[in-house]
């Protein structure tokens, strides 16, 4: 039997395949297709202190091998999460992780504290990289000073596993990965979406009412892979690779480039079974090659 386990600090994941925030709801939406307990983890939809309606429709534009979205963090707020959603998902036998978002540092800290008191949520993913909100989000994640500040404050307020989700819309991903490490994050995950745009030449308007959106899917994979490789060489904490992962081959590319684990996002829209297929595919790759621990592959292209 091959061993797919990995750890962030002392937190154990049964395998390195998680579902990405905003692409898997709260996990239970996928139950007709997969057993969420088989996943390495579930990163639930981006959550804010207050309920949010998100951005106006249309929120999506298809692009070559990818899509732009501008959902804008629609969610029912932390209170609803605690009262209604948490009870529904706390029974999952996998790591359920909440992706936290805010306009201000206080927002992030409040969320981290409240999530910190939910027994069955062993980690948060600090989203400083959402490109679809006017305040907060990517504004934190593309400025080294405010990135440092928000990570520092959340770290003070939260003593479980802290994953910082980085924005790819920066000149140096290493810089932000190092800031996260220096401020005590347990892991960085990347990439969030690349800021993109589409135009409808018939209406002569941007395809998305807010002009820009976040690009995801296979189109971004080469960029994501490069950034994961750079980040993994810059820091010692585990890097979680995200971006255009559709198959086990894609996941293995990230792992070989230095990712300790991966998140599957947009692929779920095309095949909701893809996360478990990817787990199976990684397993059979290891078996075929006679590799017992997948961790032997992590970052192997550097050597």
């Amino acid at each position, binding site marked *: 039997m091959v061993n797919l386990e990995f750890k962030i600090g002392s937190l154990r994941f049964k395998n390195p395949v998680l579902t990405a925030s905003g692409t898997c*709801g709260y996990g239970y939406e996928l139950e*007709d297709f997969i057993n969420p307990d088989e996943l390495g983890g579930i990163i639930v939809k981006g959550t804010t202190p207050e309920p949010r309606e998100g951005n106006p*429709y249309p929120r*999506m534009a*298809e692009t070559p091998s990818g899509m732009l979205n501008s959902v804008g963090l629609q969610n029912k707020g932390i209170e609803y999460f605690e009262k209604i959603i948490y009870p529904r998902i706390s029974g999952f036998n996998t790591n359920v992780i909440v992706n936290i978002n805010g306009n201000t540092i206080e927002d992030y800290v409040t969320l981290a504290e409240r999530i910190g008191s939910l027994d069955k949520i062993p980690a948060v993913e600090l989203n400083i990289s959402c490109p679809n909100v006017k305040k907060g989000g990517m504004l934190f994640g593309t400025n080294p000073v405010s990135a440092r500040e928000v990570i520092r404050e959340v770290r003070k307020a939260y003593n479980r596993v802290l994953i910082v989700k980085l924005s790819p819309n920066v000149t140096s991903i290493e810089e932000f990965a190092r800031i996260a490490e220096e401020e005590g994050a347990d892991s960085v995950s990347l990439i969030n979406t690349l800021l993109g745009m589409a135009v409808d030449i018939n209406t002569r308007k941007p395809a998305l009412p807010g002009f820009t959106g976040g690009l995801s899917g296979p189109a971004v994979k080469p960029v994501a892979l490069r950034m994961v490789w750079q980040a993994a060489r810059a820091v010692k904490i585990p890097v979680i690779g995200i971006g255009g992962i559709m198959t086990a081959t894609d996941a293995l590319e990230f792992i070989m480039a230095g990712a300790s684990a991966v998140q599957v996002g947009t692929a779920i*829209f095309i095949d*909701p079974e893809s996360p478990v297929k990817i787990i199976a595919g990684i397993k059979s790759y290891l078996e075929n090659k006679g590799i017992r621990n997948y961790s032997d592959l992590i970052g192997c292209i550097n050597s």
Partner: protein
Amino acid sequence: MAKRSEDFRVVNIKYLNELHFILELEGTKPLPEIKPGQFAQIRIDNSKNTFLRRPFSIHDVDYAGNRLKFLIRAIGDGTRTLGTIAENRMVNLIYPLGNSFSLPLPREKVLLVGGGCGIAPLLYLAKFMNRSGVVPDILLGFRNSKSIMESDEYSKTGRLFIITEDGSEGEKGLVTGHTIMKDLGAYGRVFCCGPEPMMKAVAELAKASGTECEVSLENMMACGIGVCLCCVVKSSRGNVCTCTDGPVFNIKDLQW
């Protein structure tokens, strides 16, 4: 009623006119229960420019043969590719998705209104009603006599009225101008599917006459299963997903 992902064999593609075709698919296992108004997300593998699945209403269901029919308008690369796929190739479906039209009360007078390829879900809806003894009136609007589709099929399921924009068959004008719409209050419910301006116009009339009105929306979808939040529509409860809370909405719940 659980959603599933399943490969279907292409049995037949029948063109109704230059742009519209019926895609007939056969599964390998018994179909789940399918409610009228539900849709499927079809994966289109051999089109370079089609990354996401495409949503299509279920047009007809043959439980005995494990077959589904779709009525599709070839409008872009995805639908054009679907319309030229070879027989016996496989396509993957995620289905059945979404809610459904409500069931009329026994003997309730019901009107179905469709325009263009928006007529797609109305055939299965009418057949479904027939099973519980309801025979709907059906009003279908087309551009001209040449663009009329499947009138034989629809007329088997209810009393069929046709209106064309140029008057080349049936009455002349838009569905909202048809004679029977003058007496909309006579119907307990109107079910409507077609271009949004048409549905909005029908909704206006229904409101005015106090008739219950349900419409089927075609918002752009990424996932179809309620995880991406891309397909939202403003409802009385805030933004809701067309793919899971819809595609059928009572107009009372929409901010129309």
